């Protein structure tokens, strides 16, 4: 089976003389797997996701997404990928339905009308689907962003803090939808998040980034046990502050 994502010795240096933002990152993600990308601000999460999406050209290294080399054939991979982030908006003057139509066309979704109807029902968009996206609450916007990210039934989904600024109930609702989608389709999910409970719940494997390098990795349970901590948040703090008290890996 082809891996959903293979990253080999990925490096990004924005300018000569500057420290690399990403420094020798390597990992493989199987289909159906969810990997968490954790790290403090400036750890290289956004740079990594931007390179995986083709927005940013790596200084060196190789990315293979869904069997396609991103340096040579990124559009074939992008047709089967999607992305959601609360930090990138959808056009606010367009209604939710119009936004979904736009992205349905960009991703060449077959049976677009039916796909939008299905997403509207599954993600509970029906009551505001004909309202401008700019008039929605934060929770509603997150659901719309998720609908956009699922419009092409992606095989590889990249999520950058998908539940940031959401109340716990809405955040839990989003996580449940992601779990259901993964179970139904076998989609691989790469999740960058600062919400450790979210990562513990969704991710089978976690990459801990610091200054662009993977400083530790494993399942949440393995990391918690290795650091002698009670939860992933304490592990995160140990790594961020360099105050590791558990056994070495």
């Amino acid at each position, binding site marked *: 089976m082809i891996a959903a994502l293979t990253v080999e010795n990925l490096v990004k240096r924005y300018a000569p003389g500057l420290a690399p933002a990403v420094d020798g990152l390597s990992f493989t993600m199987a289909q159906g797997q969810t990997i968490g990308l954790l790290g403090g601000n400036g750890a290289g999460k956004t740079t990594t996701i931007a390179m995986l999406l083709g*927005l940013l050209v790596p200084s060196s290294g190789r990315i293979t997404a869904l069997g396609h080399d991103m340096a040579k054939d990124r559009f074939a991979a992008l047709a089967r990928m999607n992305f959601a982030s609360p930090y990138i908006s959808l*056009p606010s003057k367009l209604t939710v339905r119009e936004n979904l139509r*736009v992205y349905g*066309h960009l991703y060449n979704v077959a049976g677009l009308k039916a796909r939008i109807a299905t997403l509207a029902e599954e993600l509970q968009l029906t009551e505001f689907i004909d309202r401008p996206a700019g008039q929605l609450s934060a929770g509603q916007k997150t659901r719309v962003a998720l609908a956009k990210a699922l419009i092409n039934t992606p095989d590889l989904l990249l999520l950058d803090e998908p539940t940031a600024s959401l109340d716990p109930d809405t955040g839990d609702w989003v996580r449940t939808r992601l779990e259901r989608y993964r179970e139904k389709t*076998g989609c691989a999910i790469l999740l960058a998040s600062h919400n450790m409970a979210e990562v513990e719940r969704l991710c089978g494997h976690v990459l801990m980034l610091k200054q662009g390098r993977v400083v530790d990795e494993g399942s949440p349970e393995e990391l918690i046990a290795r650091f002698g901590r009670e939860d992933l948040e304490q592990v995160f703090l140990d790594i961020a502050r360099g105050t590791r008290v558990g056994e070495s890996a």
Partner: protein
Amino acid sequence: MMPSDREAERSVNRPAQSIRRVWGLVYRHLALYRSSPPRLIELMYWPILQMVVWGFVTAYLAGMQNNVASVAAGVLLGGVLLWEAALRSQMGFSISFLEEIWSRNLGHIFVSPMRPGEMVAGLMVMSVLRTCIGVVPAMGLAWVLYAFNIFALGPLLVAQFAALIIMGWAVALGVTSLILRYGAGAEALAWSVLFGITPFACVFYPVSVLPGWLQPFALALPAAHVFEGMRAALVEQRMDWGHLAAAYVLNAAWIAGMAWVFMRQFQSARVRGALLNIGE
């Protein structure tokens, strides 16, 4: 549906998929105009205002000067209306691109399967639509208010109109390249850059009026040839095929050059990370 089935479904009929992606971008902008009447009114406002002002100037000069025939033939009004085609074409392309920056939507577009060439094609379609919405009503109004029928130029009008729209695209590709290079700080150029070319485009006077050293620069612009051809048709009632052909040859060269610059800047923006924060 399994991943392999979805992949097979997505890989078929690639030209049709490309057209659909272009339509997706066009649809996005059409939906924007449908929800925002002020944007639609703004498209028509400036061409009509320009036409009204120059219509009165034409009427005044026709009464005051000796070259009544030339003025009455409509070279000023014709110049204004055709130059608006170039202006609106360039702005239609550049501002449609800026709309994506202003709505912070560019990231979503660049991570979709839409190729840069398809995005450019979508912006060109929007440019034509915006130009027609803006300039055709002004042309009709010039007929009603000043009895100046630019449509009497017939197929030549279409050829000249198209040549100026293509020149607008070339300039817009340059402007968009500067926005990719310098970010939103370069967006003022979207409104101003073509006005700076106006003196050399010889919209209202022949190229021969310019100083000798400046004439080669003017003749490197497709617009100067279009307006020479327009004056030949309106004043001398003859078709100047040479100038029309020169306009199209120059357009081909300018478009090819600016497309190369655009692709270079797009790739450079991907290397520098400029696509991540282009609106800032």
